[in-house]
């Protein structure tokens, strides 16, 4: 599957100065943004599970349900 372009990731809009960059530079920004999104999603998934270990046992079921785990 083709990677999403920078404009695609940002909802179609790019400021003029960014639009005017070389293609490989826009691609670099697209890669950096995609990586940041992936890191964030991974960190969130891990934190949800790991965080439950600190939740008092009595509340764990309710918290698990609220978070959707």
């Amino acid at each position, binding site marked *: 599957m083709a990677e999403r372009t920078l404009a695609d*990731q*940002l*909802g179609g*809009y*790019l*400021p*003029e*100065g*960014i639009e*005017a*960059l*070389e293609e490989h*530079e826009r691609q*670099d*920004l697209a890669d*950096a*943004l995609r*990586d*940041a*999104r992936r*890191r*964030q*999603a991974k*960190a*969130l998934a891990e*934190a*949800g599970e*790991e*965080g439950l*270990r*600190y*939740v*008092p046992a009595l*509340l764990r079921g*309710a*918290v698990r349900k*609220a*978070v*959707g785990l």
Partner: protein
Amino acid sequence: MTENYAVSQNYEAEAEILKLARVLGVEPERLEYLARVDADDLRAFRERVTDTLFDANIAVLQRMALAARLLPGAVLAKIAEKVFGPLLCARIAGVVDVARGVDVAKRLSPRFLSEVAADLDPRRASAIISRIPLDTVLAVAAELAGREDWITLGRFVGHLPDPTVRRCLEEIDDPGLLRIAFVLDDKNRVDHVVGLLPAHRLGRVITAAGADEDLWVPALDLLNHLSAERRGTLAPMLGALPEGLRERAQATIK
């Protein structure tokens, strides 16, 4: 004027690159090619990237914020520091309810809070930021100043009440104030913030630039953003500046 303006524009682009690199989690050197992009375009781009990242996992974050309501503040603070880390806390701060956010923030160490501050989008957590107790804000500001994180300090100025900003400014030295003013998110607020300083401090801040050539451009940029009236009060003090800076400062306040 044109040359100063160009230097200042370039510096603003540099500051924007640092802020964008932080949002993306990359080294600023990787983004060097952005130095030729207009600072306003970089700012618009950074805000768009920030919104995209904050919105990317909004459903999960909202569920986490919902679950946070079930837990005592002390437990949440422990999870925040031990598991979530600064980045996720910064993301969740944008969706958690204000009272809960303030309650947890009060229990976190100033060092950890300063790391959260660096990743936070102040636009999304403004209501929480403005309710953090003064002592905590001062401790966090001291942490950020100690790390010379002027960018983060500059991002928060517009989201704190004036009396809090005034107290923070008392704790920051003159070169630090010049650097914060230079990277302030909203340059239109420079004159207002300077107005919070005691009368004698502005002259001292400007003359502090004489000791370090790196501070010349920030000092000239500060002069550029002051009201005509305030600039006028500085005229008698400029004679003490070293040659080179003095002429440029005098030309700026004309």
